[in-house]
């Protein structure tokens, strides 16, 4: 159990959930082709957000070392993860798009919800990582 593996798990779940949420959102526009949109978003997310894996791993490394109760640490982790995701989104769009798209807030909200849901989905692994680190430093 390492921060990087847990981080990878969290990242993978976040992009799957994000693609599902976005896919559902595209049903009114694309009908059955929303499935294609789902796969496109999934592939795009993998390529675009892979630089975040080490960042998430680093965050989990810090998380395991914080002198707080697991619940407090998890709340902190959720907040920072959402902050990083929103920041990454804005930075990416600012750098590569000529102007920020109008529904930017909708994208950020959608992804933030997906990230939060992925964190809850991976909660047991995160707590396991925390306990593992705690036991390692008991001696």
């Amino acid at each position, binding site marked *: 159990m390492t921060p990087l593996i847990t981080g990878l798990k969290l990242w993978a779940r976040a992009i799957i959930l994000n693609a599902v949420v976005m896919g*559902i959102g595209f049903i009114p526009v694309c*009908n059955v082709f929303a499935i294609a949109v789902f796969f496109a978003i999934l592939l795009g997310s993998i390529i675009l957000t892979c630089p975040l894996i080490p960042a998430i791993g680093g965050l989990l490394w810090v998380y395991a070392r914080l002198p*707080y109760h697991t619940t*407090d640490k998890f709340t902190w982790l959720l907040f920072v993860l959402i902050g990083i995701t929103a920041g990454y989104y804005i930075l990416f769009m600012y750098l590569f798009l000529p102007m920020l798209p109008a529904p930017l807030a909708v994208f950020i909200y959608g992804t933030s919800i997906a990230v939060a849901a992925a964190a809850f989905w991976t909660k047991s692994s995160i707590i396991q990582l925390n306990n593992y680190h705690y036991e390692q430093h008991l001696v």
Partner: protein
Amino acid sequence: MQNNRSVIFIVLSGAVLFNLLFWQEQLALNALLFDAFILGTLFYLHPAGGRNKTVQWLLPLHFLCLAMVIVHNTLLSQLALLTTLLLIAAFAEYAHRSAWFAGNSLLLSFILFIASFSHQVRITRTRERKPLAVGKFIRFSIIPLLIVLAFFIIYSLANSVFSGMVSRLGLQLQTFFSHLFELISFERILFLLLGFYFTGALLLRTRSRQLEQKEAGKTDDLQRKRKNRTGKTGNPFGGLTAGIMGRLARGAMALKNEYTTGLISLALLNVLLLVVNYIDIDYLWLHFTYTPDINLTAMIHEGTELLILSLVLAMIVLLFFFRGNLNFYTRNKWLKAGAYLWLVQNTLLVISVLIRDYYYIKLSGLAYKRIGVLFFLALVLFGLMTVFFKIVYKKTTYYLLRVNAWAVIFLLAAASAVDWDMTIARYNIAHSNKAPLDLPFLLSLSPRTLPLLEQNLPLLQQREKELELLGQHPWRCAGCIAEIISNKKQDYLHQQSGYSWLSWNYADEKTKNYFIAQQQVPGLKGK
């Protein structure tokens, strides 16, 4: 720390107060009210903080900055106010001596605020009652909601009657939310969250004691360290010297070899600096006369920047050689002499930079950077003095950084006592016969200088004509400086009319009164 329920109440109250005081206002009288709240609650939550010596002498400095915000309301005074407030909070909450460590602890407070606040909430909740099963409810509802949402969209697309029902319902909801957002704007909610984060991070300390423990191990006085078998002293520079000097950095003669390297380096640096100082003294101190063919900007800008860099590097060089056991080497007399000479020569260099800056101000007038150089030189002089003390009294780098950080903070607070924009405008206008006026720069200063500019309008118009005759056009229209000043005045008054009594400050009040007295501002009296 007081009981958890009151902590939560204080942080939430602080967020609301922040929102009420600062929303669409400038930092002025409202800073006094918020400051009273923050300091009151800070000493209530951390009673030991009030007895801390550093906090006790930081408080007058902070009040000076606060007074300057209300009197001058400059950006510098606002920055100084924020810096001193953050430092008071850091020293009240943590056991530190150095501003560096205190700053880092406060940074940690800001990073970990959510965890600290969650800690307070969790303890309160576990004390009061069992947590509600809200979390369980949310978990059970996520998957069904997602499935229902997907089918809801499909049915609404497939069935036109259902779609009509949905769109009517959507319209009703849209009207409801638009009315709701008219009452509470999204930006205001974000501002409330900012206030919550700022107040909370300022008042709650983290549970980490790592930095306090680290600083507790630091001392002002240098102690001789015995090298271990690998030749390591734990100094970060140790590896660098060992890497360059190889086996000369190890063994019984290591210290002597390091001494020889230091002595040669300082001797060569002294000779080099002697040549530079000789040129400066001969040319700049004794025989400098300005002629138009001298590119003053290049000479002063480039020269000053490089000399400043060399002064900083000089201090780093001395810190490198006097970082450890060379301080205790019995035959280090010549190395110390070389270091003192190097310090004296660097002081001469400071004077040379000062003279350059003096000529620049004399021939081109005052500007932010030129004033900044004066402050920087004051800090460098202080830095050189502390390096001298470090060598004489065998002090640590920690001491040097600690003392110099206080010098920066003290100077920042002192600098906030002056309205620099007004000083620059006044000086440049008074010396316009010697230093030609830089009109675009003058008009870029604070709007509070507008009355002064208006009083000297004939002088500015004359300068504008001179520039136009030289083929230089500071702005698109010709001969329109009066119009530009008038537009700036209107913009300023329009901006001021949007503020309430919370943004009151003496400087703006004086400026507004000047314009009212001139009866140039219809409708302002009502504000």
